[in-house]
Every structure is written in C-alpha cells, then in structure tokens.
C-alpha cells in the first residue's frame, strides 16, 4: 500500500457515525458483495464501480461511459438497481451489493441468465451484466411488466449491438414463468 493510501483510522466505524476524511486520506469501509464481506480502504473519490473492479477484482460489472448514461455498470444495492459509476464507495459502507458474479448459485444460472442465452439476447456481451442486474431490479420493482413497460423500464441500459427485441423477450419469458 502506498503511503497516501494509509487509512486514517485503524478500525472500521459504524456507517451512521460522524466521520471526517481529509483529501489525502483513505477510509476503511465494509462492503458485503454477493454475500461475502470485504474490508477495504478507499479514498473519498473512489466510485463503487472502481472499488468492485479494481479493488475486489469483480470485473463482471462493466465500465461503459462512466457517466450514468449507458447502464453497463448497473448493480443492485440492497436489491435496488443503480449505476455504480455514480456512487461513491464510501457512501455505501456496510451495504449489501449484488453484482453479475452473484446472480448464479453454485453452477445454476439465474433464470434471467438462462433466458438471455435461450433468446440469443446479446452479441458482444459488454452490456449484458448491466442488462441482467437491471432486469433483476426491474422484476423486483414490478414482477409482471407488459412488453412496452419492459422497454420503458429497461431504457437505462443501452445495447449498441441492438439486441433489444431479444432482451425484452427474455425478460418477458421469465416474468411469465413466475406467474
């Protein structure tokens, strides 16, 4: 660890305690990612996306635009879909985060992962982790969306290969299975 990454505290503080961190200090936080607790020291400006990718090695979550415009970085925080590129990691101290790596259980794919494969719903695959986390979030928000609703409520995830019709069909099939 380089000198400027030294945490200014030895121990993790509860996430609701007053803290002050200087611009040259790292701060110890806890992230529970896909059920596994990680402790890491982050500088104030580290995004949740960079913490996941660069610090925890979870590179399934993609950096597309890094400006909240493409949705490739979508993860679930406490079950709610958000753009991880616009979240500061230290503001999510103690949060439960689900990334693409956490959707499958053991060797069993998540129903939405299976459906995307069955419906040929990707080409290059770069947007797919974000599409999947967003679709999980959508079905948490609204279990049985209509086709136009899926289109509208998946509009935060761009696919430059244009796999939209098949992505919509895949999500719809999972929603129908769950009826």
């Amino acid at each position: 660890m380089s000198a400027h990454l030294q945490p200014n505290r030895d121990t993790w503080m509860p996430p609701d305690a007053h803290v002050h961190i200087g611009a040259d200090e790292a701060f110890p936080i806890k992230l529970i990612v896909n059920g596994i607790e990680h402790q890491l020291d982050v500088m104030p400006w580290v995004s949740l996306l960079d913490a996941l990718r660069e610090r925890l090695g979870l590179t399934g979550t993609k950096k597309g635009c890094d400006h909240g415009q493409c949705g490739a970085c979508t993860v679930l925080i406490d079950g709610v879909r958000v753009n991880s590129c616009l979240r500061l990691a230290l503001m999510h101290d103690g949060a439960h985060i689900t990334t693409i790596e956490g959707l499958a259980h053991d060797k069993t794919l998540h129903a939405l992962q299976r459906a995307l494969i069955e419906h040929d719903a990707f080409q290059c695959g770069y947007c797919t982790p974000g599409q999947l986390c967003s679709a999980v979030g959508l079905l948490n928000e609204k279990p049985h969306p209509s086709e136009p609703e899926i289109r509208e409520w998946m509009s935060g995830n761009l696919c430059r290969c244009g796999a939209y019709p098949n992505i919509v069909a895949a999500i719809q099939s999972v929603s129908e299975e769950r009826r």
Partner: protein
Amino acid sequence: MHPFAFTRAVDVQDALRTASATPAAKFIAGGTNLVDLMKETVERPAHLIDITHLPFKSIDATASGGLRIGALVTNATLANDERVLARYPLLANAILAGASPQLRNAATTGGNLLQRTRCYYFYDVGTPCNKRRPGQGCGALHGQNRIHAILGTSEHCIATHPSDMCVALAALEAQVHVIGPKGERTIAFADFHRLPGDRPDLDTTLAPGELVTAVELPAEGFAANHSYLKLRDRLSYAFALVSVAAALRLDGSQIAAARIALGGVAHKPWRVEAAEQQLIGATPGADAFDGAARTLLAGARGFGHNDFKIELARRAITRALLQAAAGAPQSIIDKRIG
C-alpha cells in the same frame, strides 16, 4: 476528479456546521449529477458533506391537506407513492418521464431541484461558459444551440433547466423548505430557480450554506384533469426539447382554474400567470388553448438551431391542455401522442 475531503454528517446541525466552516463544500445525497460533473471537472468542490443520514426520508401529510416530501426521498419512491399516484399523478408522470430507473432509484427530491443544465458548453471545460465562469463568454449563443432556451434568456446565458419533476412542481405551486445558518425559511417554487441575467452561475435563490429539507405540495393536485407531455429526440431516457405540465379544474363545461408550466425552454420552469388567467371561464378547446399558448410564448426568441422550439411549444401546450381537459393524460409508457 479533483481530490476532496469528505464529511459524513449525522444530523442537520452537523451538516450546517461543517458547511459554514468550509465554504468550498457541497452537500451530496444521490450524487447522480454532482459526481458526473466532478468527473468532468465542471464541479471541483474541495469538500463534500454526505447528508444521506439526515432525517429527510419520509412523505408526510400536512395539516393543510397536502404532502410534505423529505428532501432525501428518491425520485422512484416519490413517483410510486400511493398518495402521489392517486392525488398528484401529474407529478408522478413528470418524474417517470425523466432519467432512467437506475438514476431515479438514486436521485433525490432535493437534488432534482439542484441539478444543473445539460448545455454542451457548460459540460465541456474546453469551451467558454458564463455559467461555469462568469465573464468568460457563452459558447452556445452563436454555437450549437438546438437544445437551448427560447424564453427568459440573457446575452450571458441561454441554458435550460433540465428537470421534468420541477416542471410539475411549478404547475402544482409547491413550496421549498430550507434550513441554513440563519434558520429555516420557505420559498415559493416560482422563486426558487432564477433567470440567468448577468449571473448565470447562480441557478437558484438558495443562500450559501442553505440546505433543502423538504418540498411541500398544496392540497389541490388536479388529479382529474392533467397531462405531462414531453417531447424529445428519442422516446425514453432523453432530456426534453419541450415539455408541458398542464392542469385544469373544470366546473361543468367551463374552466375554473388552469396551470401551465413549460420545461426545456428556459433557465427555470416557465409559467405566465396571464396565460392561466385568460382560460378561467373559457370553454375547453383548441381555440382557447392556442390563445393561452400564444400568451405563454410571448417574447419567445430562437437562436438559430432552436427556432423550431417556438412552434413545437405552441402545439405541445395546446395538445397537453386538450389531453388534460379530456381526462386523458399522456401515457408515460406508450409515447404515441393521442
């Protein structure tokens, strides 16, 4: 992003104390706009104060029959609140017309009010911008100005306010509750955002160190006759070229009250009281609504690429009012305009 210090505030006094001790500080909640602007180095705060632990997360009924929305209530929570859907559907529709589900899950009520323009020149630090740095000049005035304002502009700035939610809040005559070093005060929605004038760097009338605590809706929500019509370059996940929040109270075959606010056309949600007054007592219809549209757009001026907005706005106002009068608000899912 430039380095910054960080404070996690535990209560309001903690946040205000830190803000007054560090004038270069900014408050952060959802951060969906601020973090992006920091990445672009448009915003370079030396200090961020995390206010997400403050107790502004509930939506409560008020004694006067309205709703008080905590500043930290997310856009998604607000738009899906049963009371908002039933009594203020204009607000729910405006919120759901903006951004994406992921952004609405993070963005807050207070932050939506304080989001900054999406003017290309404001975002591009390689070009001059009076909003970023007063006195530098305006790149948009003689540049690419297709998305820019047609009303209330100045020679210094022709940027628009990007919010959809604020257009509905303007039409509903919400109030903004704030707290600062000098105590609490309440600001009428029409007085919260300002026109650019010779200080386009100032988007709002908030004093330094003041914090938005809540937005209050009055009792009347115009739930029977309203429409939020948003026109944009793609059907979803795009800022408005022109948007209209229309609300009517009908008494038999006559209009008893009207509210019209425009988005995408000015530095703040645009309302003209005379346009609303002239509808009172009128019979709902294209003639009356076109008359109101002309009053609303009096003095509108294009800058070349955005000239089309004047005619687009005139027709959108009439359409939104017809939808409101018919009790058939614009669908936020099926974007075909009926």
